[in-house]
């Protein structure tokens, strides 16, 4: 035991002093100003581009019209509907209803701060209008929630000159590769010729997974050996797309925790490659898992800082999760949620609309048929 103590003592002393040492060094040099330019000026969106939800006819046979967001929201919607049902029945000033409402918002992963903001805002507006009934309260809360969304187009942007490049980023396991498969299908149904760049050279068999999506959607794919430099894969994809006159390169990237600074550096480099001629980078999409808790906000912040995200793809919204964290990210960073994944089928990736989302969440009338469905 004595040796253990000694070992430990040395360890503690040394670690403490080393840290003292190192932290002084690194603190003083505090990372140079981030040189990652964030795209604020995207090429103007031409009216015929983007993915319009109404384009059902042009989908290939296996790609039927977009799924209904209401169906996808499933339980989340049910919980809210029930709540709003009880609000409507109440007189809006009861403390208990406010508490229930707070719980419901917190349970959607909206986070403490935004929940408070929504509730305080709603209370204030009720006070000013003098309304006290349940309907007024429901409307006030809805308006507060609505105000958290940014007023920005949620269409995916194509550049005027081909090839357009979309970079897809996110932490591990959020569904990046699957989302890319669905994006490729969407683009294909829009008569775009697509090259998939298998930029995830780290995860075992990630390229195989993307290859299957390429076959399914008729897209081209550029892949390399495991462990290869992802930038070179993206570079080759853009070259290939340009040479063959393809419209769109969708670049997959390896999932990475935003805390791994070396991997985030790699992503910066990847972005620089994707920006280079002949490619035109118009979208850096962050894929967020709807089951993610408050860490989702940190993810969005860090990825935005590193590579400047232009939109969020919210996946797995068909579970019991409610994806409130994506709303929190939109409210804080001003990056719109562009697409939501509400199912496993190719067509289950749909363009996000805040109004539809809120209507679906708060739609009291149809809660009966939902309960049946459940």
């Amino acid at each position, binding site marked *: 035991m004595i040796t253990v103590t000694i070992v430990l003592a040395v*360890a503690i002393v040394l670690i403490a002093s080393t840290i003292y040492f*190192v932290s002084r*060094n690194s603190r003083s040099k505090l990372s140079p100003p981030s040189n990652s330019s964030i795209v604020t000026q995207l090429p103007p969106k031409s009216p015929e581009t983007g993915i319009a939800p109404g384009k059902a006819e042009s989908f290939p046979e296996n790609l039927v019209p977009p799924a209904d967001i209401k169906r996808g929201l499933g339980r989340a919607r049910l919980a809210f509907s029930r709540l709003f049902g009880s609000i409507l029945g109440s007189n809006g000033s009861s403390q208990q209803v406010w508490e229930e409402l707070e719980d419901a918002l917190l349970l959607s992963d909206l986070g403490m701060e935004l929940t408070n903001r929504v509730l305080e805002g709603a209370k204030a507006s009720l006070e000013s209008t003098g309304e006290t009934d349940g309907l007024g309260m429901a409307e006030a809360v809805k308006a507060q929630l609505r105000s958290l969304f940014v007023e920005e187009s949620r269409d995916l942007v194509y550049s005027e000159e081909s090839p357009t490049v979309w970079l897809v980023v996110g932490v591990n396991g959020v569904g990046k590769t699957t989302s890319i498969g669905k994006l490729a299908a969407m683009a294909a149904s829009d008569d775009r010729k697509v090259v998939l760049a298998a930029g995830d050279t780290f995860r075992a068999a990630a390229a195989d997974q993307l290859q299957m999506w390429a076959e399914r959607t008729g897209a081209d794919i550029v892949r390399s050996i495991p462990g290869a430099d992802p930038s070179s894969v993206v570079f080759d994809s853009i070259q290939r797309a340009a040479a063959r006159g393809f419209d769109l390169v969708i670049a997959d990237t390896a999932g990475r925790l935003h805390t791994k600074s070396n991997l985030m550096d790699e992503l910066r480099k990847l972005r620089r490659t994707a920006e280079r001629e002949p490619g035109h980078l118009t979208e850096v999409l962050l894929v967020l898992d709807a089951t993610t808790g408050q860490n989702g906000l940190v993810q969005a912040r860090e990825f935005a800082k590193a590579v400047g995200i232009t939109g969020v793809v919210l996946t797995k919204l068909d579970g*019991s999760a409610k994806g409130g964290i994506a709303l929190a990210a939109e409210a804080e960073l001003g990056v719109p949620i562009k697409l939501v994944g509400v199912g496993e089928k190719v067509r289950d990736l749909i363009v996000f609309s805040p109004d539809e989302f809120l209507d679906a969440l708060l739609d009291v009338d149809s809660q009966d048929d939902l309960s049946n469905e459940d």
Partner: protein
Amino acid sequence: MFDNLTDRFEEIFSRIRGKGRLSEAEVDAVLREIRAALIEADVNVGVVRSFIERVRANTVGEELFRSLSPAQHVIKVVNAELTNALGGENLKISYASKPPTVVLMAGLQGVGKTTAAAKLALWFRHQGRNPLLVAADLQRPAAVEQLRVLGGQASVPVFSVPGDPVNTARSGVEEARRIGRDVVIVDTAGRLSIDQELMDEVRKISESIAPNYTFLVVDAMIGQDAVNSAKVFNDALALDGIILTKLDGDARGGAALSVRQVVGKPISFVSTGEKLADFDLFYPDRMANRILGMGDVLSLIEQAERTLDKEIAEKGAKKLKGGKFDLEDFLEQMQQIKKMGPLKGVLSMLPGMPKEIRNADIDERELVKVEAIISSMTKAERTNPDMIDGSRRLRIANGAGTTTTAVGTMLKQFKDMQKMMRSMGMGGPSPTKKSPNRSNSKKKKRR
């Protein structure tokens, strides 16, 4: 994991610590803040409520007002409840008397099941077992291929047949029996808890292979939904434990707390990095201590024993005691410490580390630079740094690929450190707060 929670608790408690009396309103305020801290750490709203209620029930009343230091009393109650919430013993695997021991992995999509399966296989191999991995995730494109690759890295064979997952799982267990593997780990497809069809499928797999252990793999970043899905999986499969993944991120991991509370099943393993070996048993009691800022000394000792060279460590300790700790020793010890893994991880296990240090932005590359500088010195220079003059400094800088200023700064810092160590002796209070000339030398630094 839980680091932010620790900070928040520290902050909350520091405001009431030392107060002679606590009014009921003050207790309320503290409880509200604890509630917010827990919710921000993704602990389930319901779990938080019952936690707060238990704390309140144990704090208000006579005892609080009789107590000499009411704040201390509140802290004690919170600590007890937290330990209780996380508490329990770590998992001790009992192997099936008639091999193979069957392990089933289940979970939502994208939580890292396949990787966790491979890591668990490697862990079993390190326990002296001969595992077989069975790829029964026939849903996700290339999942089987992924497990094959990972199995290859872990030197564990992988079995799979296309077609029906239930059949694959069963054949996998039979195969293990046939070729004499004593542990079988069955990886299943990720599924949403509301997908009845897939939940039925995993239940059928479970029924047909009768696993000895069923683990639910949970992503440490999961939010409020953790509780719902854990409940559904527990109803379908009768879980034995939870494997918590992606702990190497900065998620606060509150889900771990809620899942344990709601399902009553402990966290068995944690996955803390991208390498297959970054995986270990979870020690609930140690984690509770860590949240409460009491450090995780046991894990640290184990880690130190595993990785440190005892002789070198003892030598270093002796020199330290005698105040003769020079650059040569520093280099030696630094190389030892590096073996223990990332500094930040080691640091978080130390008790009583002030928050500024725990959260300091530690750049491990700085260590490499320091090492290069010391390595470029002669033996004599290392024992007696005072002899380093301008020309020696230049030579050292050239050798280390850095500037003379950097060498100078490093030497000065080492001197500061020596002074500091001398003044604190062994095992004294944390030295870092009262480091001399701190602001001075910071100003002098430029890059």
